[in-house]
């Protein structure tokens, strides 16, 4: 089969989806002088987007130099808190470091603003942006993707880039992936709560544009697989829950009620008090890690970002946007070469997954390949939090009875919990290996 296109096309590249992956791919290719169409189903880029909001953004300095200085970032995350929450207590691993303010590897973002800014950079670079267009189907000829169909219209391109998100219909249509099992997917329910800047800085012990990110497990999901999150923006907080779909479906719980329950938990409510609800919504989240990996290319087709299953939850960090940008950089490089050679075959585009494997995207996906399985452990979402709480209670509850060493206290707490020693040690070792 000859997959070297010679016919005239409407655009060199059509990118479907103006999120981070799509916009960065389009931007990089336009900088190389290629004609690029960026289509977005929302009325404007970012209008359909809902993100928890921490962007590990170092990769953007390569994708769009000067990103930190010019992009609409909210706060530089200098304080990370892992919180084990029970109904009446919490145990926090709270890490703050001035060095994080210098290195700036993580920032909170509001995607409505960020995606709009990214699209504006694309347009300045020469990308033709077309919002309000939902791509209905890929056009294929002789086994090669040659364009897109939307409404009654067809547009052709040498290469189509699928950046249409976690639920990528284009990937399904191209036979790149099938429906994901529920355990690979979660639903995120999020609120953005407006608060004065000064109040946020007082409540989270922040100054300037420094910010905090909380990852919470336990009672926030009523012991279901998933977790809670709380991120500081400049004048608002992004807060909500992510619930693994298999657990949620089994439990019969309502995701909206679990979200409301988390926001009214005393540990959360104290941060939100007096705030004004600015935004509320839900979004599908990929949680499968490397297990979700699938083909990323077909002749004339490249898949990037969430559509490629590139998300990573390590418990400490929940990543997707940085992997999206990294995949976009890799894809843009390979597509640029393919366009210059006029070769859009499977073999030519397969340089993209190989490139991904060489950079942090593929390597981190492999390094944390065991994380999703480890995080499937139901004890993570209730029993271990309560165990930690009981241990700390024993340490601090000086009720005039004689104190015992910490090891004995841990033993007592274990005896009183449904957890057994050996499986707990096994889980701890598995956690060390997975994370």
């Amino acid at each position, binding site marked *: 089969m000859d997959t070297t296109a010679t016919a005239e096309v409407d655009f060199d590249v059509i990118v479907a989806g103006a999120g981070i992956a799509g916009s960065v791919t389009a931007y990089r290719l336009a900088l190389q002088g290629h004609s690029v169409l960026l289509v977005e189903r929302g009325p404007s880029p970012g209008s359909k987007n809902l993100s928890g909001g921490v962007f590990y953004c170092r990769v953007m300095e390569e994708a769009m130099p000067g990103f930190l200085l010019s992009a609409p970032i909210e706060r530089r995350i200098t304080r990370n808190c892992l919180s084990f929450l029970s109904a009446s207590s919490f145990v926090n691993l709270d890490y703050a470091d001035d060095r994080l303010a210098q290195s700036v590897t993580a920032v909170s973002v509001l995607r409505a*603003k960020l995606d709009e800014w990214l699209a504006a950079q694309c347009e300045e670079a020469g990308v033709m942006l077309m919002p309000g267009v939902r791509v209905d189907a890929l056009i294929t000829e002789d086994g090669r993707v040659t364009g897109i169909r*939307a*409404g009654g*219209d067809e547009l052709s391109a040498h290469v189509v880039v699928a950046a249409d998100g976690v639920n990528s219909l284009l990937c399904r249509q191209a036979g790149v992936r099938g429906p994901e099992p529920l355990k690979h997917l979660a639903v995120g329910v999020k609120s953005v709560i407006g608060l004065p800047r000064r109040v946020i800085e007082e409540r989270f012990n922040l100054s300037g544009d420094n910010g905090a990110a909380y990852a919470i497990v336990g009672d926030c999901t009523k012991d279901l697989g998933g977790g809670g999150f709380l991120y500081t923006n400049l004048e608002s907080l992004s807060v909500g829950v992510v619930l693994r779909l298999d657990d949620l479906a089994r439990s019969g719980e309502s995701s909206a009620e679990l979200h409301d329950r988390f926001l009214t938990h005393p540990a959360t409510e104290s941060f939100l008090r007096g705030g004004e609800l*600015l935004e509320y919504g839900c979004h599908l989240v990929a949680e499968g890690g490397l297990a979700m990996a699938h083909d990323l290319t077909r002749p004339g087709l490249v898949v990037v970002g969430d559509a490629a299953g590139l998300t990573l939850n390590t418990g400490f960090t929940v990543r997707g946007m940085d992997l999206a940008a990294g995949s976009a950089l890799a894809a843009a490089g390979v597509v640029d070469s393919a366009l210059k050679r006029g070769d859009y075959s499977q073999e030519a585009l397969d340089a993209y997954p190989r490139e991904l494997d060489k950079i942090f995207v593929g390597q981190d996906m492999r390094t944390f390949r065991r994380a999703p399985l480890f995080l499937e452990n139901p004890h993570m979402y209730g029993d271990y939090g309560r165990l930690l709480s009981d241990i700390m209670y024993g340490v601090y509850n000086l009720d005039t009875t004689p104190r015992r060493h910490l090891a004995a206290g841990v033993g007592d707490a274990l005896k009183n919990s449904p957890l057994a020693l050996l499986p707990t040690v096994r889980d701890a070792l598995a956690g060390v290996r997975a994370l």
Partner: protein
Amino acid sequence: MKIVVVFKWARNPLDARVSADAAVSWPGVKLAASDDDPAAMEIAVALAAGDEVVGLTIGDGDTAWAAARGAARTVVVTGTPGEADSAATGAALAEAVRRMAGVGAVLIGDSAWDYAVISALAGRLGWPAVAGVTAAACSEQGELRVTRRLGAAIQVLAAAGPVVLAVTASRAEKNVPGMKEVLAARKKPAEKIAAADLLDAAIAYRVQTQGTRFPDTPPARVIDGGDPRTACEQLIAALRVEGVI
């Protein structure tokens, strides 16, 4: 007849943020085409009968909206002082129209999003205005016949001279432009005019909002369902009076 169609000149009230104290704010909300804009465009193209249709907007983002629906070119007024200021918006639009020679009619969506702009536009132009327009046609003698809806009544008016027609949509847009039409539209001419060049700096256009409050809850009308036939008749009559059907 040369026609100007005004599009993307208001923000969708559904996007407004209304606080508990009824204060209204528009964080990040952009001007958008209303449901009435496509109807205005459709009538304009038919009315022009091959003559020039010019799109006029104060919106940003994709300004090729009218061009994709048949306008030959677009005039974009930039930097309108305060998008919420209906008087300034109307004045800037009127001055932009005035600078185009030979305009026979200005068509604008009769949007409930912001009635004041239409009044200010017509007032500044000094042209008659007809609201609630559902159709318009030119007779063989060149007379403009405008159909408008007033509650349950349909009225056909004869209009002479340049006129502002505020069009009310009776259905969703039928022929939404496809990708190729949008791409072609972006190649049509678009002229940008700064609002500062259109507005008289000596005039204070500002509309001052004294305050906002939640609307009174209209009293419910209860129809006795004892006799289903009578109840249905009463319901239909009530819906007609309210202009729902």
